[in-house]
């Protein structure tokens, strides 16, 4: 079994301390742990793919592609991922977490229930205005849904998946060179703070 591949040296003329790679006896275990967590997230995505496929086929296909990507990442981390791929893995995992948060807070613009919004069809998958002689809007709006119908609710599997992805993200960030780790950490901090600020504005204004 190979071990985790790491950058072999710093580039000439760079700050050696800042560019120093993460090293240490626990690094291989860290990579494997990240791989295991990525595998858990992939399995959750695979488990929910059929029901999403039945509801809206593109969503099911997307989840299968995501699961395949995470399974590949998991085996790569287990075998010893090239250090050059760690930033991409961080990006992928952070992106999935971001997508999850968006789908559970503001809704995704590609959800089938919102696909008609740009066409003036009231967010319905029916032609809302195509009722000859109809007065007003005949589409029932269930309280608590309405325009937010595309926002999914959080379930147990969602929590399992996002916790696994956050754990994998933390481990992957920890595998980055110090300078990259600092930049990525600052970026994630900024994104997190923005999220809290937007939530506060929506919640309290």
């Amino acid at each position: 079994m190979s071990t985790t591949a790491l950058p072999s040296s710093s580039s000439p003329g760079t700050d050696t301390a800042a560019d120093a790679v993460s090293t240490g006896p626990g690094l291989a275990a860290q990579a494997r742990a990240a791989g295991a967590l990525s595998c858990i997230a992939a399995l959750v995505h695979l488990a929910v793919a059929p029901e999403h496929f039945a509801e809206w086929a593109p969503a099911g296909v997307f989840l299968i592609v995501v699961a395949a990507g995470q399974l590949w990442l998991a085996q790569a981390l287990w075998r010893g991922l090239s250090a050059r791929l760690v930033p991409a893995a961080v990006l992928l995992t952070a992106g999935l977490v971001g997508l999850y948060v968006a789908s559970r807070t503001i809704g995704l613009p590609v959800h089938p229930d919102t696909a008609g919004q740009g066409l003036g069809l009231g967010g319905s998958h029916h032609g809302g205005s195509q009722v000859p002689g109809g007065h007003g809007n005949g589409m029932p709006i269930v309280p608590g849904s309405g325009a937010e119908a595309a926002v999914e609710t959080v379930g147990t599997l969602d929590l399992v998946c996002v916790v696994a992805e956050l754990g994998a993200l933390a481990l992957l960030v920890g595998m980055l060179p110090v300078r990259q780790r600092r930049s990525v950490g600052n970026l994630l901090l900024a994104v997190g703070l923005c999220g809290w600020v937007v939530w506060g504005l929506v919640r309290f204004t």
Partner: protein
Amino acid sequence: MSLSRRDLMKLGVVGGAALALPLERTVSAKSSAQGRLASSRLPRPFTMQFRTPPVLRPYRTDATTDFYKVYMKPLQAEVVPGLQTPLWGYNGLVPGPTVKVAQGRRTVMRQVNNLPGKHPVLSYTPWTSVHLHGSPSLPQYDGYASDITNPGQYKDYVYPNTQTGRTLWYHDHGLHHTAENVLMGLAAQYQLVDPLEQALPIPKGEFDVPLLVSDAMFASDGSLYFDNHSESGMFGDVVLVNGVPWPVMKVKRRKYRFRILNASISRSYQWSLDSGDPMTVIATDAGLMPQPQTVQRFRHGAAERYEVVIDFGKMPVGRRVVLRNTSPKNNIDYANTNKVMAFDVVADDFDRANNTVPDALNPTNPAMLLTAADAVRTRRLDLKRKHGMWTINGHTWDDVVKSKFSLVEASPREGDVEIWEIRNSSGGWFHPVHIHLIDFRILDRNGKPPMPHELGPKDVVYVGENETVRVVARFEGRGKYMIHCHNLVHEDHDMMSQFEVLADHDVSDPMSDPCKSLPEIDDV
């Protein structure tokens, strides 16, 4: 791990946001939604008295026709003791008044939409379209989903009543919100009697009892609770018979005929008696069976009608018999949805006439004489969920509308006999399929004979999980008629299409006699 404390704090901020914000959004969405009434607030089964809806009288008659007026209007009802539930009823009644007509006499039924401009909870405009289910009405009087009547408008529906005696029902069929309108109360029985049925010694009068079975869920303020489970179905935790939760009915020691209509939005039932006694099925959707069928239990999908005779004659006074529901799969069940109503046997004296079930009922029903060999062609209807929509052969009612109502799944010529093979390839759903206009006979289900209780003329067929059902019918009538799943949530979203019976002349358009605006004018 090679993360500093500072790194961990940064990750904690983003991780906390990723975990907390979606959770907070879910909790706040739930709190802004209707609060469901706690099960502890629901009435205990068999504590409320059974009742039957009143019979509607015509306001005018002439030599050939009975004229009725029905006003759809809001009402407040105490369905759950101590709570007021806003409902909509035909003439302010839930269920609506029963109409009883004789074969051969025409009916003109004026339906006036006096509903409010907006639904009190769901905010939609409640346009309506009234369908008399089981009637070969002309297309413009069949309750075509897009032939709507807005609040402040009315329409006169004409019913020929030429078919064999049967239990029909009138209910809303308005586009996009049929499920909600029916759940609000727009449903009632319509009984057509013919000389054959009158001549049979089966139970009549007070022993011929309508049972309109439905289910509902309530919000904590008493209003109906709406949850269509991602457009898959509405399932209540309260079973209502004629609008009363789990009622108890006093019965005399003799036979009773029960006209059971499953008026639930989505739920199917499997009936049985807790005493283990059998039930004798004497009629199906389109009237009397050729021979009665004695069963211990039977499956009953939405919109189907089964007439059963239960014999309380051998039961001791004081005995309570419970009509139970062993729920078919893919319903959502609650603590007491396994019970429906109770019968308490009493010692009262009773009329001993019409207290038998003969061995032959209607052996010459035309629909039941059809065989596969009579068919000139076979057509297939595939029931599928596609891209989140319920479809028939891949089509929805939206497709029909977009085609300017030209899209049809079938176009038999008038008088043709056809086999329709209806296929549900899903294991996750069942579909009670209703074909308007016609009566049909079920030929087989997955290649096997129909169940005993289905051996009568039908207009709805239960197409269960992974089932293929073949039916045979003669297409008498002309014009366009709907085919749809009678899980009304499926129908609304959007498992409905149409067929057209072709004829050389005199074909009516379903939209050819639109509603009129109030005030009413007596021009019929």
